[in-house]
């Protein structure tokens, strides 16, 4: 799996490996029983008919209840992650995300507007406020293990807090909801910056964008 940039994504990976462990155990159990029974009870001259067994209620209860308990446990255990993802922290940096056919537009708090160029300050809570200008897109950042669809007429959100060890690195931000012929190339780049570098980048961008707009 790719790098996990946030504390949240690292704990979601933990949940993934925990669930993977549980299902791998049962996967191996079922495959071993399947292949084992196929080989052990194959038809031979000594073994021409199977046992006259119709069922066993104790076993039925056992293999209904055990998977039910484990599955509901996985569900219940996942709930706290959902709320942690959903409830945004107070006073985050809000970056508006707008999906277009076929590019991502980002609007920063000071009015700076970029295309396919996402910059996030490390160590700060950043909230993405996501919508679409045309069709449905999917705003997905695999490196933080989160995504929300960009839906016209609707705002979706998720928040991240990228760890400072990733400063200077760049990550892909693909559209993952099918949106037409430009869908495969609708990929933004997300650059993690130190808060200071982020601020100075915002200032420079703002001056440049002001001068271009006043020139035109």
């Amino acid at each position, binding site marked *: 799996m790719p790098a996990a940039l946030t504390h949240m994504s690292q704990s979601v990976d933990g949940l993934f490996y925990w669930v993977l462990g549980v299902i791998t155990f049962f996967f191996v159990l079922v495959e071993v029983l399947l292949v084992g029974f196929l080989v052990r009870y194959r038809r031979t001259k000594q073994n021409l008919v*199977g046992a006259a067994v119709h*069922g066993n209620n104790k076993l039925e209860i056992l293999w209904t209840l055990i998977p039910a308990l484990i599955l509901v446990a996985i569900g219940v255990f996942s709930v706290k992650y959902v709320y942690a993802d959903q409830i945004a922290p107070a006073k985050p940096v809000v970056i508006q995300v707008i999906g277009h056919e076929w590019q991502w537009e980002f609007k920063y708090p000071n009015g700076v507007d970029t295309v396919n160029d996402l910059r996030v300050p490390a160590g700060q809570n950043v909230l993405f406020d996501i919508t679409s200008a*045309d069709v449905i897109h999917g705003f997905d950042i695999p490196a933080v293990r989160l995504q929300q669809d960009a839906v016209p007429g609707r705002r979706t959100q998720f928040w991240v807090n990228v760890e400072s060890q990733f400063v200077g690195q760049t990550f892909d931000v693909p559209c993952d909801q099918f949106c037409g012929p430009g*869908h495969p190339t609708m990929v933004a780049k997300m650059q993690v910056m130190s808060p200071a570098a982020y601020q100075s980048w915002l200032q420079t961008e703002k001056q440049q964008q002001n001068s271009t707009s006043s020139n035109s």
Partner: protein
Amino acid sequence: MEAALKPPRRSFVREWILTVDHKKIGIMYGVTALFFFLLGGLFALLVRTDLLSYKGLFTAQSYNEFFTMHATIMIFAVIIPLLTGAFGNYLVPLHIGARDMAFPRMNALSYWLYLVSGIILLLSMVFGMPDAGWTSYPPYSVQSHGPGIDLWVMAIHLSGLSSILGAINFIVTIHKMRAPGMTYTRMSLFTWSMLVTAYMQLFGTPALAGAITTLISDRHFGTVFYNSAQGGDPMLYQHLFWFYSHPAVYIMILPGFGIISEVLPVFARKPIFGYHAIAYSSVAIGFLGFFVWAHHMFVAGMAMSTGIPFMISSMIIAVPTSVKIFNWLATLWSGSVEYTVPMMFASLGFIGSFIIGGFSGVIVAAVPLDMNLHDTYFIVAHIHYVLFGGSVMTIMAGLHFWFPKVTGRMYNTKLGYLSFWLYFIGTQVAFFPMHFLGLAGMPRRIASYNPIFQFWNDVSTIGAYMLGLGTLVIVSNLLYSAKRGRKVAANPWGAQTLEWTISSPPPEHNFDDLPVVSSNPYQPYPEPNANPNPTPSPTPAPV
């Protein structure tokens, strides 16, 4: 006397085109669906061929049309018609000891509607193919130009109408036309699964019809159901669509579960383990199947916590499925397992592959994990393990199991084993690497991709070619053997359901005498010394 026993010679038109015989209609469903299986497979190979290079070998527009046609054909023109139309039509009246379906003419109408729906899909290859995926989400599907989406809507409407008529037919037939003594708990497990499937089709399909009717209305009649600028909401479509299309996943697997429950006990020479548990778990799946639809929409714009009840219901629906798996394993336990071709498809092929799809389903049912994996190749891996490792494996088990009943002949078993291994290995090679791609962050439905994903994509394409080869072997083997295969007796497998008590192929009127049933068709097999030819216990007796 002899002349009187011979069926009268009829013209092709009278024999097939005008027929209302459930067996002939079943065969026509089967042959038509196998043709579409080849076509849908061809589109799959085009999709995989495009992905051989990270740049994509075709244009993105062509690629979008290919995967849309692939999924639409496979779901609406292959798997559903094969399982319900072909297997259901052919077997249900025979399994319950009936002369035909309750409404034979309506049954023929279902087939002809299905055929017209398929022809419309074929026409779209001439006039312009749909390009919005089989889900066809608005607003993209409203904007998409050309007749592709319109033809798609027409085809889905007709296929849905065919489904609804077929479902009514199955429900009435199973409730009303069972032979004397055929109580509900003496029905075959395949009949149980078809009954539940029919109810799901009846209740689910109208929601799909609503979704696509509003879609075409937005496209051409100026309505704004899905235009958010004028107060519409694209999410409405997704709710309507998945209210049908999640139950449709179970429509595409429950009859397959029924096939497995018929094949395993015959070749393990044992009664099925846990008859009631398997029958009632189908009912549980049918009921719960209507409460999980929004797990397709965890990131679609709902509040994340709204996903929690759907996560819990999706976890719970895995329970009746795992109950079936354990009962099938227990059926093999202490059996006398014969490695026939249908048994290989049913045991190693189906159980061995399907559980991977079941387990990955648990992962993507968990909201926090789906936040990462939604719309990635992990989902593509999951659906293909469920639909190919699941549904298609059960179809192949069923085709190779009932082929001698339908044709009175046997296929070439060497080619049968060859196709099984091509299918089994091809499934793993084609679909397992998609898990890695999804975890690495590769989105689905993209015609070109980041070069870091190339290796596993190429492996997957090789697996897809193996599946294509396996399909050619199966289809040519069965087609050739239907005319030239070795003739076999009425019950070559020693199976116990009612269709094996009559000749192969069965006479047009099915049973010479109305069968009287005194037990379910899963009885212990007698010791070989006592009786070398095990006679099925529910023997038809004159009334």
